[in-house]
């Protein structure tokens, strides 16, 4: 469990390097990667894989929005490396591989689960960013009055 969370941290940091995130923000993106995987593994047994993925992505996206405002950076800098451990890239690859090896039953099963997992990640991201957009709009309107 500790090793897994650490691996989440390392993979987010590694991708922060690959996507050339500014050096000052790399450690923070690593924390988000670890946080996402921690949330995912804590809730996996209770909420199922898709539910856990949704919660993991939501926690990462909420913290990305907070960090972006705090450290005056675009959200994408924290969000993209942060959700990398959660994005079902490995499963998407396994899906394609099953189809190419004529294992259509396995392929369709994997395809459906990849689709739901990616949808869960997307839903988490979009809910977090909508919350913050509504919040800053409310603040703006109040200032106008």
């Amino acid at each position, binding site marked *: 469990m500790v090793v*897994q969370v650490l691996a989440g941290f390392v993979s987010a940091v590694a991708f922060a390097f690959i996507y*050339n995130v*500014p050096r000052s923000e790399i450690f923070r993106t690593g924390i988000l990667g670890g946080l996402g995987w921690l949330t995912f593994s804590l809730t996996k047994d209770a909420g199922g894989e898709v539910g856990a993925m949704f919660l993991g992505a939501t926690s990462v996206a909420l913290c990305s929005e907070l960090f972006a405002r705090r450290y005056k950076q675009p959200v*994408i800098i924290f969000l993209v490396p942060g959700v990398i451990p959660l994005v079902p890239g490995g499963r998407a690859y396994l*899906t394609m*591989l099953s189809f190419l090896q004529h294992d259509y039953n396995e392929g369709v099963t994997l395809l459906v689960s990849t689709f739901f997992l990616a949808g869960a990640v997307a839903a988490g991201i979009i809910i977090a960013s909508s919350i913050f957009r509504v919040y800053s709009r409310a603040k703006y309107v109040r200032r106008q009055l």
Partner: protein
Amino acid sequence: MEKLVGMVLLAGELLLTCGAEMYRVEETIERMGISAGFAQVESFATPTGLFLSLHTSDGRVYTRVRRIRRSFSNLALISEINAISRSFSSGETTIEDVTTRLKGLKKEGVPHNFLRLLMGGMGAAAFTVLYSGSGIEALIAGIIGSIILLIDNKLEDYPIPNALVAAVGAAVAAGLAKGAALLLTINTNVITLGAVMILAPGVVMTTAIRDMLSGELVSGVTRGAEALSIAVGIATGVAIILSMGGN
């Protein structure tokens, strides 16, 4: 005026080539255009092209089209351009200053250095651990990850489609994993999976979903297709190697 138009266009083009979301490109163009003194700013950004027209208060219109042919993921540049456009909008920097800074950024591209390869390898190793591989499997995946990142960096200098670059990287990864399995008792599937994860279109996939759900349907579909073609490329590369040696 021409100078101002050129500056706004350059900022938008740079953001697009670095893989920014569409709403950020359009918002930045709008903010910079308005603070440069234009009465109305219209822009339409897609992953493969940028259109903008700037209306002055005396009724003249400047329209520019810019075709975007190559893009890469460089989040540091997005952050820089964001800072530049903020300081321009608040009136802290002049047009000349902004233009020279943007031109300097344009030359940068993606840095290819040893540290990046090393960290790529670490990423592959970490993914192998996440997919419950053992320590030795993670180590091998890490070495393979660094090698395929190096190969793909070299290939990106040539006009080869992204999907093919990914396929070559994936084929090399699968081949090396099979080779390592001849010497050691290891699970090649986990190693290949961890190693190809660093080729996976993570940024493209996430921004595609974000664009799609925030109503940017054109770029959402375009980027989704790009992510799909890269994923197919990776799977094809691995499948070719696997089918050559049986299972």
